[in-house]
């Protein structure tokens, strides 16, 4: 790719990114304490089947009668498809347990290790043996 074309490509990407404004900003694994795994019980507010990473927006009781919203970042559809997930595997209102690594900056963003559905089904973050 020559230089002028790569600029056009980047401009196109930025335009698209602005048009589809994300719910949370984070990305690389290095934003998370990957060797710490916590868990949260909550209700799915939204499930976004997007590249490069998926997003599970989770509503969690704060223990004081209120609710807080967490953005749980999942792996790419490419990987999750082979681990038993799908575009429709989660829907708003589903009660789930999420195992996650917390963001290093303390924001309410986590990186998904596993999601357990109300019926006990477990969705791991990688295909078996991967």
């Amino acid at each position, binding site marked *: 790719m020559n230089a002028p074309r790569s600029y056009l490509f980047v401009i196109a990407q930025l335009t698209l*990114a602005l048009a589809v404004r994300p719910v949370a*900003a984070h990305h690389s694994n290095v934003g998370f304490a990957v060797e710490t795994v916590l868990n949260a019980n909550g209700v799915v507010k939204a499930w976004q089947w997007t590249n490069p990473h998926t997003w599970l927006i989770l509503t969690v009781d704060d223990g004081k009668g209120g609710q807080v919203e967490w953005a749980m970042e999942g792996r790419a559809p490419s990987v999750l498809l082979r681990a038993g997930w799908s575009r429709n595997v989660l829907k708003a209102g589903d009660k789930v347990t999420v195992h996650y690594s917390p963001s290093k900056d303390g924001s309410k963003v986590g990186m998904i290790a596993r999601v357990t559905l109300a019926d006990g089904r477990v969705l791991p973050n990688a295909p078996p043996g991967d």
Partner: protein
Amino acid sequence: MFIWSSLPRSVSAIAVIVAIALVVMLGAQSTSSPRPDFSGVYRPINPFGNAAVGGGAPPAGTPAPAAPAPGQPLPPPTRTAPLSDGSRGRSADAPQLTPTYLAKWQAISKSRIAGSSESDKVAQCLPPGMPLMMSMFYGMEVMQTRDKITFFSELNDALRRVYLDGRKPTPAIFDDPTYAGFSTGSWEGDTLVVDTVALRDDTYIEGFTPHSEQMTVHERIRFASPGVLEDRIVVSDPKALVKPWQTVKTYRKMTGPPDDQLREFACAEGLGHVR
């Protein structure tokens, strides 16, 4: 009568011509070396390698525990991904860096430990580049013709082309370094020997190990066993590396759907998530 008397002679003449053609074709095949067909979809075997000790930096998560026996609860996961910030130092088999480039690595490590994604080019949807892309973390599709082999990485939809038609890199190619570089290859028996030049200096060798614009990559690619493709990689860089670094990647060929189908990876879809 005329027809009946001439037919057998025509048939036998055709048969002789066909036989001669077959002998010539078979002879030509047996004298040229066999070229294996690498075409197909592959998944990497042990793609994360030594990532857990800090030498590697895969772009995303890591294995969850295997499914337990029926009726047994799953143990809780202990991590979401291999540690990829260098906080445990460099692994013993990581490339040996010159002091200047070790300092660069340490600076990147510091940024990563602090939680910044600034150094993660793949997370910014940029191509992983050579040789990192040959880790093929998610999957690889190989498309082979007589004159060219194309390697496609599901992660970030990254592509490289290896020219087999004898062309060589020109000064214009060297003046225009790219993520995948310029690759030429030739066959040595069942092994494809590939040399890659004209690489950008802002990608990583593996993990987040930096390199200079002088990096070159030499590969020997073959079927190590039926269905298992092996890439023996040697990375040279007189500025960044104390000595050439060698690694071996292996990939298992997928035999049917859905595993032999790569999914679209439209990374730009979520580019705005990056900070």
